[in-house]
């Protein structure tokens, strides 16, 4: 009851597929939805927040049905990608009115609105019309709206869009803080290196289907067609290369031009690491650094969806 559950969820817009046969269990922490434009990320988020109802299947958020907004939105905050605001409102009014719709009295709504504006560094612009805000400010005021009532589940559709680097860093810190407090933070993003840096889990979507999901290392291991790439900075890389080629899991080894390291492509990373440990303990190698080169969202994305996934 404390998770987000999607069971066999499909959504069709007439004959057009939104998402199909989605089964997901999303625990607390930061989960990123990754996929090209039109892959179904926003549809999935709209299904989680009841803005869309599934054609088939069920969605439960912390045990609540998405068809019960009265209960749902006490627990859920949604920062949509829609960049439109009710006319004539200032940033403060936008938040305060939203909190009044939650049922807060005027004093509490005002207090929470100011707290929200402080969280996104918009206090100075509070009494400016939202229509006069920059893209980044609009993004921040939407973010403030989604967190101002203290939800347990945050659904954020492209929340880093339009933010300058400083605001991005602050927003990411905010997401981490929410996740550390045991909340569910679901983010869709095109910016893969940021997804990589902040996500506990990723859900890869393409053409309405969930292609892979889980923590990024787990997802990477489920792509056996693409041997894992491992970078090693060490002395005598040629010795290591010779030993690696003795293994049947090695696919390719490239020695760096500076002669101080190599790139290994292997079908069995565990066996490679065992070999490396053995060589180090035998004293034949001084290893400076070891790091997977394609154990990240970008690589998994390219392997599963393709480099021309769109908009990345």
């Amino acid at each position: 009851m404390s998770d987000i559950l999607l069971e066999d969820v499909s959504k069709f817009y007439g004959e057009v597929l939104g998402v199909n046969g989605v089964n997901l269990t999303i625990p607390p922490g930061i989960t990123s939805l990754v996929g090209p434009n039109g892959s179904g990320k926003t549809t999935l988020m709209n299904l989680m927040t009841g803005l869309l109802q599934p054609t088939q299947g069920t969605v439960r958020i912390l045990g609540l049905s998405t068809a019960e907004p009265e209960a749902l939105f006490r627990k859920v905050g949604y920062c949509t990608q829609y960049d439109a605001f009710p006319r004539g409102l200032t940033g403060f009014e936008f938040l305060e009115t939203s909190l009044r719709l939650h049922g807060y009295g005027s004093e509490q709504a005002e207090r929470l609105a100011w707290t929200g504006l402080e969280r996104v560094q918009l206090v100075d612009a509070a009494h400016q019309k939202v229509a006069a805000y920059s893209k980044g400010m609009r993004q921040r005021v939407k973010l403030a709206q989604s967190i101002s009532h203290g939800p347990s589940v945050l659904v954020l559709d492209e929340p880093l869009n339009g933010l300058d680097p400083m605001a991005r860093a602050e927003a990411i810190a905010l997401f981490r803080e929410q996740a550390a407090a045991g909340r569910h933070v679901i983010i869709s993003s095109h910016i893969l290196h940021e997804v990589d840096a902040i996500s506990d889990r990723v859900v890869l979507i393409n053409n309405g289907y969930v292609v892979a999901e889980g923590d990024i290392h787990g997802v990477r291991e489920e792509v056996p067609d693409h041997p894992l790439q491992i970078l090693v900075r060490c002395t005598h890389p040629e010795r290591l290369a010779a030993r690696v080629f003795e293994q049947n899991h090695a696919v390719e080894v490239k020695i760096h031009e500076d002669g101080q390291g190599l790139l290994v492509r292997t079908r069995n990373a565990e066996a490679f690491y065992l070999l490396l440990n053995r060589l180090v303990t035998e004293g034949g190698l001084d290893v400076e650094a070891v790091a997977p080169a394609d154990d990240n969202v970008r690589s998994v994305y390219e392997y599963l969806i393709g480099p021309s996934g769109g908009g990345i």
Partner: protein
Amino acid sequence: MDQRWPLWGRQILTILRLELRKNFWGLRAIPMYFLALAPVLLFGARAILPLPARQAGEMGFAANVYAGMFQLFFLRLAVFFGCVAVFSSLFRGDVMEKTLHYYLLAPLRREILVIGKYLSGLVATVAMFSAGAGLSFLLLYVPYGPSGQNFLWDGPGAGQLAAYLGVTVLACMGYGAVFLAMGLLFRNPIVPAAVILGWEGLNVFLPPALKKISVLHYLLSLCPVPFTPGPFAFLTEPTPAWIAVPGLLALTVVVMMLACRQIRRLEISYGAD
């Protein structure tokens, strides 16, 4: 008392606060101002001109002029189109501006949203059209001097005014509910509004049984001064007030229930609109 009632009350007040701003100052308000104030301007201009000698003291003539204006222009066109502009935009306007999700992302029963928006439209249209009907009625009797004053305050004038205002309120309620529902049911509510306008316009030429399938018939039945719109009109007995008023209220409730049912199924898919 259910503890949710105070919450719903606060939520409705918040919706009213937000929507009244749009209804009074937004683009949708322009036709409402124009239509509501047109008879005021007309009778205001008449009030500053000297009365033709043959009309002096002819309160019956003035009452007929007002009855004609109210039934032919005010009810059939002004209130009708004013309600189309205001009520059909309550939801459709937000969908067009891609702002409806602002409400739908709050812990707000969707039925409460329908009621809040409807009340905001009702406050705006009743305020404007009652003001238009009332002011034009008063201005009509200004040129008659003391006899006009006497008619208004000591004669049947005050009763007629109250009846016209009541009919205006009922018209806003009935048409308002219908056009709010149209805004939820149709992507382009102008088409069904045109069909309803055609049906209501044909009403006078319809046989009595068909006349009763219209909002206008019941509103006309409640008007204090009868007015015959022409030689080709089918004359029919007015429906008694004790049927007409509850009938219009019942229509409003039924249509609002339909609107509530519709909004529970509403999905946000701005791209498709």
